[in-house]
C-alpha cells in the first residue's frame, strides 16, 4: 500500500501502462518535457523517450484525429487535452469519428483511444479552465466516460481505460489532483471494473450520488447530516457512461430518497438522466422526487463568484432537507 496524490497516481498508472504495453503512447501539448501543466505526465518522456511521450503541436483536433489513426494501426494512444474548455476543437473528431468507427465498420475496427481531460472548477482559474462537459460526450453512443475521485481508482482506472477496446474519455477532477489517498498497487480490488459504481458510505435515510470532484463534498455533507441524526448513503458513480443504474437503484430501494450532485449545469445533464431512470425503475420506492444539485444554466462564471456556482456541502444539505421534508 502506497500513499500518493491523485495526480501522482495517474502518473504511476500511466507509467505502469507504458511499461506493460509497448503499443501504448502518450500525446498532448506540453506533456513531455514540462510533464503537463499539472505535471501528471512528469518524468515519463525521460523514461520512455519522445516516441512514446509526444509533445504535440497545439491542435486538439489534430491530437485526437492522429490518435485515431494510430489506434487504427494497432497502437493505444492516451491523449491529454490540457483543459476541459479546450476539448471543443476536438469535438468533431470525438463524436463523428472516434465514437462511431467501431459501429461504422460493424465491429471490424476498434479505436482504443483514451482522452484525458482535467475538468471541473474550484481552482480560481479563468474562462474555459473550469468546465464540466461530460454530458455532451455521454449523449454520444460509442464513447465510455469515467472519472475517478480518489488515488486508488485513479491509478487503476487509467490502466483499465487503456486496456478497454472502446474509446474512453477520462475526466480527471483537477481540483482534487493533490488529494492524497492509499493506493494498493498490487490489486485493483473494485477498480477491476472501472464502469461500476461504488457505495463509499452506507446509510439508510437518503442516497447521494456524485462522481469525480464532488465525491468528497458528498461525503462531507453525509457526515454533517449525521449531526442531525440522518444516515446518508453516498455512491461514487465513477462511470458516467455506462451509468451503473443497478447500484443506484439498489440504494434507492433501501433509502427511498435520491440526491444527484454534479458540477455541470443541471439542465440536460447527467443528473436528469439518473432522475428519470430511477423514477422509471423505482418509482414506488421513492419517498420524494429525485433532487438535482448542479451548476446553473450559464457559462461557467468568473472565478471570484464560482463558490456561488459550485455545489457545496450546504447546497447538498439543503437538497437533503427538501427531500426529507416529503
Amino acid at each position, binding site marked *: 500500500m502506497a500513499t500518493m496524490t491523485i495526480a501522482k497516481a495517474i502518473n504511476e498508472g500511466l507509467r505502469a501502462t507504458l511499461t506493460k504495453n509497448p503499443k501504448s503512447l502518450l500525446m498532448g501539448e506540453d506533456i513531455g518535457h514540462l510533464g503537463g501543466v499539472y505535471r501528471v505526465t512528469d518524468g515519463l518522456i525521460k523514461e520512455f523517450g519522445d*516516441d512514446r511521450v*509526444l509533445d*504535440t*503541436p497545439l*491542435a486538439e*483536433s*489534430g491530437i*485526437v*484525429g*492522429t*490518435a*485515431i*489513426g*494510430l*489506434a*487504427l*494501426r*494497432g*497502437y493505444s*494512444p492516451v491523449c491529454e487535452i490540457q483543459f476541459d474548455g479546450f476539448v471543443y*476543437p476536438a469535438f*468533431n*473528431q470525438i463524436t*463523428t*469519428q472516434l465514437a*462511431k*468507427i*467501431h*459501429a*461504422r*465498420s*460493424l*465491429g*471490424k*475496427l*476498434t479505436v*482504443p483511444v483514451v482522452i484525458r481531460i482535467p475538468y471541473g472548477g474550484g481552482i480560481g482559474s479563468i474562462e474555459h479552465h473550469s468546465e464540466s462537459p461530460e454530458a455532451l460526450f455521454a449523449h454520444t*453512443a*460509442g464513447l*465510455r466516460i469515467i472519472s475517478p475521485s480518489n488515488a486508488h481508482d485513479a491509478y487503476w482506472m487509467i490502466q483499465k481505460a487503456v486496456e*478497454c*477496446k*472502446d474509446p474512453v474519455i477520462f475526466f480527471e477532477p483537477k481540483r482534487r489532483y493533490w488529494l492524497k489517498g492509499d493506493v494498493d498497487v498490487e490489486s485493483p480490488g473494485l477498480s477491476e471494473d472501472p*464502469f461500476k459504481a461504488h457505495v463509499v458510505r452506507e446509510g439508510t435515510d437518503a442516497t447521494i450520488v456524485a462522481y469525480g470532484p464532488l465525491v468528497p463534498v458528498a461525503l462531507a455533507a453525509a457526515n454533517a447530516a449525521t449531526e442531525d441524526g440522518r444516515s446518508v448513503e453516498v455512491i461514487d458513480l465513477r462511470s458516467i*457512461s*455506462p*451509468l*451503473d*443504474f*443497478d447500484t443506484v437503484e439498489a440504494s434507492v430501494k433501501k433509502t427511498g430518497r435520491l440526491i444527484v450532485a454534479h458540477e455541470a449545469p443541471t439542465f440536460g445533464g447527467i443528473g436528469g438522466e439518473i432522475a428519470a431512470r430511477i423514477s422509471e425503475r423505482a418509482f414506488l420506492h421513492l419517498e420524494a422526487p429525485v433532487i438535482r444539485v448542479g451548476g446553473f444554466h450559464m457559462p461557467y462564471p468568473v472565478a471570484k463568484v464560482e463558490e456561488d456556482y459550485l455545489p457545496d456541502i450546504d447546497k447538498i444539505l439543503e437538497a437533503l432537507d427538501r427531500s426529507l421534508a416529503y
Partner: protein
Amino acid sequence: MGSTQLPPGTEESLAATTALAAAPGEATDMVQLLGPDGTLGSDPIFSDYAKRIDPEKLRVFYTDMAKIRRFDQESTALQRQGELALWVPLTGQEAAQIGSGHASQPQDYIFPTYREHGVALVRNVDLAELLKQFRGVSNGGWDPRENNFHLYTLVLAAQTLHAVGYAMGVQRDQKAAAASDSTDPKAAVMAYFGDGASSEGDVHESMVFAASYNAPVVFFCQNNHWAISVPTEVQTKVPLSNRAKGYGFPGIRVDGNDVIAVHAVTEWALEHAREGRGPVLIEAYTYRVGAHTTADDPTKYRESAEEAAWREKDPLDRLEKYLRAEGLADDAFFDQVKADGDELAKYVRSTTHGLEVPDIRQAFASVYAEQHPLIAEELAWFEEYSAGFESDQEASN
C-alpha cells in the same frame, strides 16, 4: 524544402511548379506528360517514372478508367431509379484516381473521402460493397484491412488526420522492423481529399502534424474545381499545391486528367514517403464533370461552356488516342473494354437489388467493442417489444 529530401533536379522543378500564383482558368504550372491531344511530352524528373509504365500497364489504366466510368453511370442511373438514396459521381476524375491508386503498393494504406470509387477499384474492393452505404444498408460495407482501403468518411477532412496518425504508426513499426532486420516492405499512407475540404481546419492540422513528425503520408488533393456549388477560387487564392511549402514539404500540381503524369508523380511521392523523407502534397488538377452528388444541379451554378471545355481534356479520350497512335491497343481491345464495363454494370445492378437489409440487432451489436449494460438493456426492451407484435399476430391467427 531541403535539397537532401529530393532527387537531383527536383527542387528547381518543384520550386518552379509551386512559385506561380493562381491564374484563373487554365493552369500551366503543372506536371503534364500526356496532353489532351494524346501526345506524350516530357518532364525532367517525372519522365523517368513514366518510363516504368509498360504498355500492359497502360492498357490496365485505360480499362480501369473505363470500368469506373461505366460503374459511375450505372450507379447514377440506380439513384435516379430510386435504388440508391444518393450517389457521388466521379466522372472526369478517373485519371486522378486510377493513376494514383495504381502507384500505391499493397502494404500502403489508403484513407479515402467519399468519392474514391476509382481508387477502391484499384485496391480490389468489390464495387458492389461501395453501394451499401448509398443504399442505406450500411455505414461502411467492406473490411478496410482486407485491401488497406479505409471506409468512406462523410465529414470532410476528418480522415486526413487519421491518415497522419496511421502514418505515425507505420513509422514506429518501421523503426521496430529495422531494429529486428525485418524484410517487410516499407509502407506509406495516402490521404485523399478535395479542394473544398482543403478549407477545413483538419487538413491544416494534418499537415502540421505530418511535417512535425516527418510522417510517411502523401496528401492527394483532387481539385475538381467545385465544392458543391462553390468554386475553388473561394477556397484558395493560390494553387493548393503551394500550401505545402508553408508546411515545409514538397507540393506538386499535376494534370489530374493525365493518368501517366498522375501515376509518375504519385509513385515519386510514395517512394519519398516510404524512404522516410516525409510527407508530400499532390494537387491533381481536374474537373468534376457531373454533379457533386445526385442531389445538386450544376446548371444552377456553372456555365455549360466550362464543362464542355473540360470534356475536351477527357482522361479516357487522351489515353485512347495515345494507345491507338502508338499501336498499343486496337478496336478489339476497346470493344472488349466496353463489354467488360457492361458486364460490371450488370453485376452492380443485380447485386444492388440483392443487398440485404440488416437487422437492427446488428447495430446494437456493434456500438461498443466490449459489453455495455445500456445496450443490453435497450436490446432486451426491443426484443420484448418486438415479441409483443409476434404474439399479437399469433393470437389473431
